[in-house]
């Protein structure tokens, strides 16, 4: 508009429903079947003063519209808007309507491919910009935004939809969405649909506070009401325009309407905007990292970056990474979150594995399980690129240094994905004094900002060197932190524990050093949040993990290890087993303590005398005890059992219970996870020749997938026995799909495993 505002149009879907569109039918098919109706709606908005007309392409997605020529629908949609006299046409893009992996079954790559097609068709048809709207999933919004940036040259506006609690259905808050999407170079960010304009104001204010691009707002005409069987929206055009006045005053410059708004609403909005000028917003400056549901700002108070997801010096994590034991990795993530970490460092660098592939998988799983932002820790360009791409927020990249190859590899990735970047005070030489460190930091900031990184997106790592070789290093680092914080005005991180490398009593040294650095102004120490000594320094920040579960039961007279298993006492079992090891062999402990206790509980469970959580609590205790007996080395070796929830099914609770009980009986389990393709099961068998394969399916619709998996195994010449289980399975079903065994429950499956594996051995 002449005065600095941009005016979008109002609703299409509700307008078409008023003209006879049936519930459940795709409004976009009207582009082909009722072009006059669609064009008329557009024209009414043009006449009301809309400068940007949104093409009727909201749900036009090859994923949703099967047996429809989606390209024709999209191209007709853009054309109709132009024919109606639109000054500019926005290609309307939205969600797939299903959840992305690992919560759902749609892969990021498939979603990206769909978006790429839609966007190319839209640009070919002559769209002037892209509107990605009504998004609930920040990762899907990012996917669409990347597809738009990589496949078209159009400006891209992105709006999310929030509920009355201020979050999307998937838990994203407006600050997190704004920080993330702004960093990813959206040309405007904001909110649509959700609530009425009046209720939306607080959301809009927080978006305006953090958006580094223009803000767009398209509310509903209030809440929907039903009267005489008809749905109507409560905000009249006058009410709508009045509420939008406050929204514009908050700093929003791109405005329009969503569900229930009509050309009359837009006309009133235009009249109101004619009498206003945009409110100038100061450019926000902050250093932050986001997950899909949380923003962590660095600077005000100390934030803890958890360091446990790093295989250096950790045998068990190393084994888990090599074997793809994702549950072990996730448990490390969860423990750190529960202990009070704010951000998690993720490093999977091992010579034995494909780092890029592994980092991508670990990031996918960790971000769907914990809510903390991640710090992606790698020097591999490929690994960082892949991880940044599928990461649902604004990550921290750890790290870049002054070496040319590092700058050339890392900077383009940080820029493209809007990451916050750790600059390590290291170049072709290593700094010794605080002055040298500061000089490196200054050079880093100069170099990085010259190449396009915002200063506020830089965090400096002043480099911790061990005091074992040079006692002055602790003080030099702390002094450098103070200088960088005060003189450069840049946030800092440090890998605290490096200070004591090669020293005795490391935790005490680390804790003392941590205290010194925090006094110097350190923003974010990288450390193990489970260490008590750190908790003492970071008073109130870290909490010790409560190891006692809720599920502890009456002993019924049982004592010792068996008693602990019987009662579900998790805390203390490790010490008890260590004590027992002084006088007894591991095999003795397993055969005389673990197995009899599990059997006893198992029999009671079968009889209905104890309930499932108690059986599982016993298995939990045994699993902890087993870890003490085995140590990390025993983790390797071929599995006894392969487990998978079949393709198309993502119910894995039952399968996980089976896994846990099998493990507590000492069976080695290779868990392929859920929604597992038959080829993957066959490949796992060919690799390991495990004697038993357990498949689970919960839905009638996925039982055929179970049969396909079994057929594929047989076709591949598998000699493994196959056990099946899951809610819909029956002994008859099990026979029909070609299984050898039907596992009624976890206890039954243990019996099957004992039979099969004893025979095999």
């Amino acid at each position, binding site marked *: 508009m002449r005065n600095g505002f941009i005016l979008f149009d109002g609703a299409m879907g509700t307008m078409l429903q008023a003209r006879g569109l*049936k*519930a*459940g*039918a795709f409004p976009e098919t009207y582009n082909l079947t009722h072009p006059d109706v669609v064009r008329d709606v557009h024209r009414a908005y043009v006449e009301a003063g809309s400068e940007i007309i949104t093409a009727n392409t909201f749900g036009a997605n090859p994923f949703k519209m099967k047996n429809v020529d989606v390209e024709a629908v999209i191209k007709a949609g853009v054309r109709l808007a132009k024919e109606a006299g639109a000054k500019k046409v926005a290609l309307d893009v939205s*969600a797939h*309507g*299903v*959840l992305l992996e690992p*919560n*759902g*079954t749609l892969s990021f790559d498939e979603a990206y491919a769909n978006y790429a097609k839609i966007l190319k068709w839209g640009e070919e048809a002559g769209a002037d910009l892209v509107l990605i709207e*009504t998004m*609930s999933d920040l990762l899907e919004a990012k996917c669409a935004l990347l597809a738009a940036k990589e496949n078209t040259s159009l400006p891209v506006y992105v709006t999310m*939809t929030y509920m009355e*609690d201020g979050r999307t*259905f*998937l*838990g994203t808050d407006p600050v997190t969405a704004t920080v993330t999407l702004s960093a990813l170079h959206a040309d405007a960010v904001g909110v649509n*649909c959700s609530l009425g304009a009046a209720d939306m104001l607080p959301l809009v204010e927080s978006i305006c506070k953090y958006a580094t691009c223009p803000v767009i707002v398209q509310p509903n005409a209030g809440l929907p009401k039903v009267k005489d*069987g008809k749905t109507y929206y409560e905000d009249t055009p006058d009410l709508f325009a009045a509420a939008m006045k406050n929204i514009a005053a908050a700093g929003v410059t791109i405005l329009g309407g969503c569900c229930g708004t009509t050309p009359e609403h837009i006309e009133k909005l235009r009249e109101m905007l004619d009498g206003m000028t945009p409110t100038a917003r100061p450019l926000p400056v902050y250093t932050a990292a986001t997950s899909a549901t949380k923003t962590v700002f660095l600077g005000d108070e100390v934030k803890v970056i958890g360091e446990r997801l790093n295989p250096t010096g950790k045998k068990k994590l190393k084994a888990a990474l090599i074997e793809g034991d994702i*549950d072990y990795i*996730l*448990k490390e993530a*969860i*423990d750190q979150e*529960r202990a009070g970490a704010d951000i998690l460092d993720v490093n999977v660098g091992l010579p034995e594995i494909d780092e890029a592939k592994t980092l991508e998988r670990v990031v996918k799983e960790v971000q*769907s*399980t*914990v809510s903390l932002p991640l710090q992606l820790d790698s020097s591999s360009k490929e690994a960082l690129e892949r991880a940044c791409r599928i990461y649902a927020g604004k990550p921290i990249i750890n790290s870049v240094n002054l070496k040319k190859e590092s700058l050339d590899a890392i900077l383009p990735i940080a820029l493209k994905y809007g990451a916050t970047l750790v600059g390590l005070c290291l170049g072709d030489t290593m700094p010794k004094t605080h002055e040298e460190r500061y000089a490196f930091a200054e050079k880093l900031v100069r170099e990085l900002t010259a190449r396009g990184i915002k200063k506020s997106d830089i965090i400096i790592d002043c480099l911790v060197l061990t005091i074992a070789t040079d006692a002055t290093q602790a003080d030099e680092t702390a002094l450098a932190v103070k200088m960088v914080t005060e003189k450069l005005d840049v946030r800092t991180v440090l890998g605290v524990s490096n200070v004591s490398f090669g020293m005795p009593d490391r935790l005490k040294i680390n804790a003392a050093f941590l205290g010194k650095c925090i006094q110097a102004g350190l923003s974010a120490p990288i450390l193990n949040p489970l260490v008590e000594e750190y908790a003492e320094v970071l008073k109130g920040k870290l909490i010790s993990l409560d190891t006692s*579960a*809720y*599920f502890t*039961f*009456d002993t019924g007279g049982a004592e010792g290890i068996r008693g602990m298993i019987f009662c*579900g006492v998790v805390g203390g079992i490790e010490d008890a087993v260590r004590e027992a090891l002084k006088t007894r062999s591991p095999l003795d402990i397993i055969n005389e303590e673990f197995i009899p206790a599990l059997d006893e509980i198992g029999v009671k*469970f079968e009889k*209905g*005398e*104890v*309930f*499932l*959580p*108690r059986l*599982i*609590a016993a*298995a*939990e205790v045994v699993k902890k005890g087993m870890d003490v007996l085995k140590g990390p080395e025993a983790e390797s070796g071929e599995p006894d059992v392969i487990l998978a929830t079949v393709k*198309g*099914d*993502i*119910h894995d*609770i039952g399968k*996980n*219970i089976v896994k*846990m009980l099998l493990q507590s009986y000492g069976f080695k389990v290779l868990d392929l996870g859920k929604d597992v393709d038959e080829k993957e099961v066959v490949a796992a068998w060919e690799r390991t020749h495990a004697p038993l394969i357990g498949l689970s399916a919960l*839905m*009638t*619709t*996925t039982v055929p997938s179970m049969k396909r998996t079994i057929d594929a195994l047989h076709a591949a010449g598998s000699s493994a026995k196959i056990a099946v289980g899951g809610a819909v399975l029956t002994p008859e079903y099990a026979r029909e799909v070609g299984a050898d065994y039907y596992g009624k429950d976890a206890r039954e499956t243990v019996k099957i495993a004992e039979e099969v594996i004893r025979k095999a051995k």
Partner: protein
Amino acid sequence: MDLALVIKDALRYLGAKERDPEAENLLRRVYDGNADVFAPRAVYGLYEITSYSPEIKLKDYAFPLVGESIRRHLAGASYALFAAFTLGIAVDKRVRELSLARPSESVALNAIASSYAERIADEMLLEERRKIEADGYKTNFRFCPGYGDLPLHTNEEIALALNAQKKIGLTVTEGGLLLPRKSIVGIVGVMKEVEK
């Protein structure tokens, strides 16, 4: 919401014996520690039935309702009330998180969430029924896709018609599975009250 009934159902799902105060107590603690993730939401749509054969058709609704079971369920009905509920995605995440941190609590929470979803769905639906019944109708029970021969893909069609993804965050996979997991889609028959 009568918590005692929720716990009772959950205990049954978990195979607890008839009276087990210890187990009951533990489930209450799991409920108390996790009820913050329950975010029940519902959306409804009332559609007039325009034909019964060869399949049931509804006014302003794009798909037919197929099968004998739904025909029996809606016999004599003037309207079909579509209802969709969900407890929200946060429950699924918590169950997953606990399955790694505290497995026994995870299965307990899973059972509690299932029984809670059923109960809260009934409770929310009751309000909707009352509105309809105030206009001189009676309603029957909630019939779900997958019951009898009503195909599971009906879930997806009803979710589309109710705009359930946008309104309550309910999605349906290609296999007809509802996500978030603790979700329910159902059809209620609405009949004219017979004059006494």
